Structures are given as C-alpha cells and as structure tokens.
C-alpha cells in the first residue's frame, strides 16, 4: 500500500529533503556542485534560481536519484538516496520537465496514469484518479482524457504534465523550468493555477527556474545557486533587499519593472 503521508510525518516537517556537502562532477562541465548544503521543509515551495549551467537541474536530479553525488549526502524522507530503491524513490516523487515529456503514443489519460500503473493500481482507481487530476489542473476530463497527447497546445501540455506528476499523490514534486516555454499570458495563468493547486495539496515542491519573477510568484523561499553552492536562500521579500553581488544581477530586471509600475 502507498503511504506517503505516514512517512512524511515520521521524518518530520523540517527534513523532507536534506543535502550536506554535496559534490557533483559531470563530464566536460567539470565540478557542478561544490559542497552544497540545502534543507527543504515538508510542504514548502522552494524555488532555485541561477544562471544557465549553475547546476539547477543537477540539484533536482540528486533528489530523485538520477544523479548520485560524488561525495556528500542527499537524504530524502529520512533516507540517503543511495539506500533507496531508485524506482521506488522516483515513483514517490513527481517530476515536471521543461519540455513536459508527454508520451506521444499515449492518450492524455494514459500519460497521467503512468506512475499509478507502475505502482500496480487497479484500473478503476486509475480512471478515477485521472478524472480527479484533470479537474485539478483545469482540463475537462470528458474532452481531454482520450485525446492523443501530441494534439494539445503548449499550456494544455504543461497542465497534463503537472497532472501526471501528481497522479500518484507523491509527497515531493520537482519542477524543472516547468513554464519556461510558454507565452507570458499562459504562464501567468498557470502560475495562478499552480498557487491554487499547491494551497490545496501542500506538497514539498522544488522549482528550478532562471526567471526570478517566476520564483517570486510561486515560492515561499527562493535559493540562489552560484558557483556550485547556495549563495543565498530566503523568503522573496528578504531576498529582494540583499546586497550580495552574486544575487543582485538576478534581481535587477524584476526590480526595474516594479519601479516602472509604481
């Protein structure tokens, strides 16, 4: 039986994800992470911001065991990722990719049902869950369930991607530039949707983005990744006041647009 909530409670809210002294070396890119420490509390939405190549995606892949650190530890729900069965771990973590990665040979419903099927749910339970998930992300089940995934628009794909990531009710949700490829209007709409969903389900969420505005719009805390470590991590309001030279450049565009509006 699937009992994420129990496990989350047992490990305590402070330690959904815990990284200590993490070093990661990736081929030609060299050392991407250099002794990084990070704590993600259960139920919080943490956004990670940084330049391209700062190691943001690597950080996410450490959580679901796609990457194992060269040294240091990554503890997810109280257990080192090296000790997790990688398949079990990944089925307990929702993952939304930048290019969504919907399976083009499956319908929307089949895409959403992937992880529940891997977990061996029965068909009726999967069907019910698919309907529930489609409603959650604002797509009418009767219209979309049987549509081939490749016929959807960009925004609809992202919604299905979120529905798929949440289908097995995982305690943790990882999002890698989830809204990066969308036009500003659709993106703003999905930001609102995300906040609504998150307030309803209260997952531990890690969002990676290069857009500080998105981080501010979605997250309860924002971390800035620079030179392989977390340069700053704080709630948006605090972060906006920082004088750290590694963080300021990322804030400038945001503050400028604020100044123009007010």
């Amino acid at each position, binding site marked *: 039986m699937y009992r994420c909530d129990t496990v989350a409670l047992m490990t305590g809210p402070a330690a959904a994800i815990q990284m200590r002294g993490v070093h990661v070396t990736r081929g030609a890119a060299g050392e991407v992470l250099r002794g990084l420490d990070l704590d993600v509390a259960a139920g919080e939405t943490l956004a990670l911001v940084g330049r391209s190549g700062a190691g943001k995606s690597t950080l996410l892949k450490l959580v*679901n065991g796609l990457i194992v650190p060269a040294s240091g530890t990554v503890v997810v729900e109280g257990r080192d990722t090296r000790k997790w069965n990688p*398949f079990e771990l*990944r089925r*307990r973590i929702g993952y939304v990719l930048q290019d969504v990665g919907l*399976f083009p040979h499956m319908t929307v419903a089949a895409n959403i049902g992937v992880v529940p099927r*891997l977990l061996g749910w029965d068909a009726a339970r999967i069907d019910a869950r698919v309907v529930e998930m489609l409603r959650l992300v604002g797509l009418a089940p009767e219209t979309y369930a049987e549509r081939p995934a490749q016929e959807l628009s960009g925004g609809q794909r992202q919604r299905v991607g979120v529905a*798929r990531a949440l289908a097995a009710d995982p305690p943790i949700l990882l999002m890698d530039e989830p809204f990066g490829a969308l036009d500003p209007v659709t993106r703003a709409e999905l930001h609102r949707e995300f906040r609504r969903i998150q307030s309803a389900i209260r997952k531990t969420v890690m969002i990676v983005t290069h857009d500080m505005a998105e981080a501010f719009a979605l997250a309860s805390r924002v971390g800035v990744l620079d030179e392989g470590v977390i340069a700053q991590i704080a709630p948006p309001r605090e972060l906006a006041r920082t004088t750290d030279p590694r963080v300021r450049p990322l804030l400038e565009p945001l503050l400028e647009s604020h100044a123009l509006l007010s």
Partner: protein
Amino acid sequence: MTLLRFLGEHRAEFLGLLLQHILLVGASTAAAIAIGVPVGVLAARRPRVGAPIVWLANVVQTIPSLAMFGFLLPLPLVGGLGARVAILVLILYALLPIVRTTVAGIRGVDGTLVEAGTAMGMTPRQLLWQVELPLALPSIVAGIRVAAVIGVGTATIAAAVGAGGLGEYIFRGLSMVDPTVILAGAVPAALLALAVDGGLLAAERSLSGRRRSWRSAAVLGALVLAGVIGAAAWNNVTGDSRHAVIRVGSKNFTEQIILGELIAQQLERSTDLTVERRLNLGGTFIADRALRAGDIDVYVEYTGTADTAIFKNAVETDPARVLERVRQQYAAAGVTLLPPLGFENTFAILVRGDDARKLGLQTIDDAASRSPQWQAGFGYEFLQRADGYPGLSRTYGLRFLAAPKAMDLSLIYRALAQRQVDLVAGDATSGLISAYDLVMLKDNRHYFPPYDAVPVARSAALLRYPAARAALEALAGRITMDDMRRMNRAVDAERQDPAAVARAFLAQLAPKRPA
C-alpha cells in the same frame, strides 16, 4: 495470356507453391523479428556489443544466396534439404534490416521521453516496453517491410534446395527455356512482393500516426504469427508424419525433371505409396547430399558422374567396371544402385546429318581424317576438362582448321545446324539432335566414360517398401536413347509439360509390360 492459361491449367500446383512461398517468407520473417528485435535493442543499448553484431549481419547480407545455400547444406542439423535450410537462409537475410531499423528506432527515441520515463520510476524493462519499443515501432515495421520484400525475392532461390515455392516455376522454366513457366514463378513473386510491401507500408503509416493502434497492430502481428506457425505445423503434420511416403528427387535440367516425373508416376501407378516430388535440385552435389541425408529416397544418376564427380575415382571407360565400382561404393553409403534404365547420357560428338551421309561418317575416327578442314565448337567446360577436348584430340588425333570456338552449350546445336561450325560436343540425349537432323559419331575408341542412367535409392527405403523396388526394377532397360531424346525434345522444343510427357511415355510402355 499464355501465362494465364498456364496458371489456369496448373491451378492446384500454383496455389500450393504460392502457399509454400508465403509460408517460407512468413515463418522466416517471424523468426527474424523474434531474433532481430531483441538483438537490435541490445545493440542500441550496448553499442560495444551491438557494433560487431550489426557488422556480422552486414557481412551475411553480402553473401550471394546460392553460395549461402552451399555453405549450409553440408552442415548437420541445419543442413539437408527443403524448408529447414531455406528458412534458415531467409532468416539470415532478414536479420540485417530488422536489426538496423530496431537500433535506429530505439536510438531515435527523444531523450526527453526516456528521461521522463526514468524519472517517473520506470525500470529499464518498463521503459523499453512502455516507451522505447512503441516509439521505435514504425521504424521497426519499416525494417520488417524491407526484410519481407527481400524474403519474397530470395525465397525463389529456395527451390534450388527443394523447399518449393514460386522459384520452382522459375528454375523449371529456366531449364526448359520456357518463358511462360519462368513468368509463372516470377510474376506472382513480384506481385506478392508488392502486396507485402503495400500491406506493411499501410501498417507503418498507421503506426507513425502514433495512435494507440500500435496495440492492434501488435495483436494483428501476433495473429499472423500464430497463423503462420499453425500453418507450418499443419504442413509439418500433413507433410512429414504420413508414414507411407516416398520422396523422388531430380537435378535441375529437362531430362532429370522428366525422369523424376517418370519415376514418381511409376511409383504412383504401381504402389499405394504417397509420392512426394523434390524435383529441380540444384545439381549433382545437392541431389547426392539429399539422398544420403534421407531428404529424398530416389533419383536418377549417371554412372560416370557418380564415379568421377561423387566418388572422385580416376576416369575409367569400361562400362561394366564403372557400374560395379559405383555399385559397391554406393552400397557402403547405404544407397542401392537399381538396374540401368537403358540409355546413356554421354558426351556426343555431333556433325550435320547431310555431312555424315555425304562423307559416310559413322565414328569419331572417320571424322578425324576430315577435321583439318573443319571448325569445331565446344562448351567452356568441355574445352577445359582433362577428360574433355584435350584428351579427345589426343586419343583420336583430331586437328581443326583453327582453335575450337568456345560456345554456350545452349547455342551449340544451332551453331552446328547453321554451319557456323562443323563439329561440336553436345549431349547424347538432347532433343535438339533430331530436331536439327544432327548425327552422333560413335566413340569407337571408348574415350568417354559410360554415363548409363540408373535410379539410385536409399536402401532403407527399398527395404521398407518392397513394392517400390519392384516398380523401379520394372523400368530396367525400358528407356532407349531415342525415347529419351524424344521426351527431351517434347519438353525443350515443343514446350510440353514434363509430367504430361512422362505420363504419355508410361502409358505406351504399360501394354508391353509382361502380364
């Protein structure tokens, strides 16, 4: 039109051969899928393992199909005649396109989708079945399509090893020089290839539409596979497990096919055995292998050929000694030499009838005195072989106006009749000898070894079916050189059906049989 008439007249046989052809291609393609797709998947995932496999499949593809049959025939287990070796060869040819497109299909899957599947907790196996294979399927089907079309073409060669199929008409037509019979094999084979191509193309299109129809395609494929296996099993049951079956073989030229028919029909008339025909085997070597392997029970061999080509003995020209030597060597191999049929298919030194009459030529010696004014024409092989022209000219002191012309055997009779040459070495039983009014000179110095036609049969089969032995012995001495020439002529020059020619011969033979 003659093609349609031919197919109409041979409807049952044609449908049988067509079914055999489809079974050969179906079974081999199914097996190649079963082997090629997993190998392709392995090759795509582990390039280090995969590269040599793809290389090997490439090498296999470059081997000419007849050579491949030659390699595999002598091997135990896989070798021997018929569908088994043919299917093996077809599988080998089908592997490359399937392995290649599988590799390309798997490698071509969008990396994002593989990452998505992995991140969702799919095991490598689940990733393969749920993501990679379905997405690679259109590419794999394209490879299957190529393999099946190649298979339809290559399967025509399978007739050379007695596996049947439409190639039988092609080989039969080639040896009879009858374009209608060739087309009766070639045209349906081409149409079959187009049909297979079209059908699989449609499947490929519907798959790359990436609907869920890959499931129904998989179901359809499984059904077809089951059908093929079922049909093959049924063929096996009806083909092999009948107990009272005797298999008659023949080599792949007109006279052999007529003799094969003749023996088969004699067995059908005189015994209640079921007779299977494996006619048109591709040459002495294959026929002999087939006999010893028990794939055929009887065929007609020539004593001189058995002596030199099969048993590799030094040339011996005394007929009685050759017969005895061959009988003993066959016996040691479990093969019984039955009584000679009565005619000899030796090399024939031929001149035009009017020359022979005008100059009173009867023997090769007679010709030797005239030959310095003549031009000679010989086949390539006859010119080269020690027991061909070099020995002949030494034995008889033959000299010609110029060096003998090398000619294709099929043209040699006409070249003589049209006075391009004056003396040729042909085939003693050729139907063209009487057709062109040619005369065969007597080998008065006994230069050529004897080539008496004798049925050779597996001793075990004769022991089991004494009636078969009696039926074959009843043919002893019953076919004269003239009979054989007439029958060859009926098929080669008059385009009659070998089976019909054999039937007519046996019918006129029957009253003469002692009551």
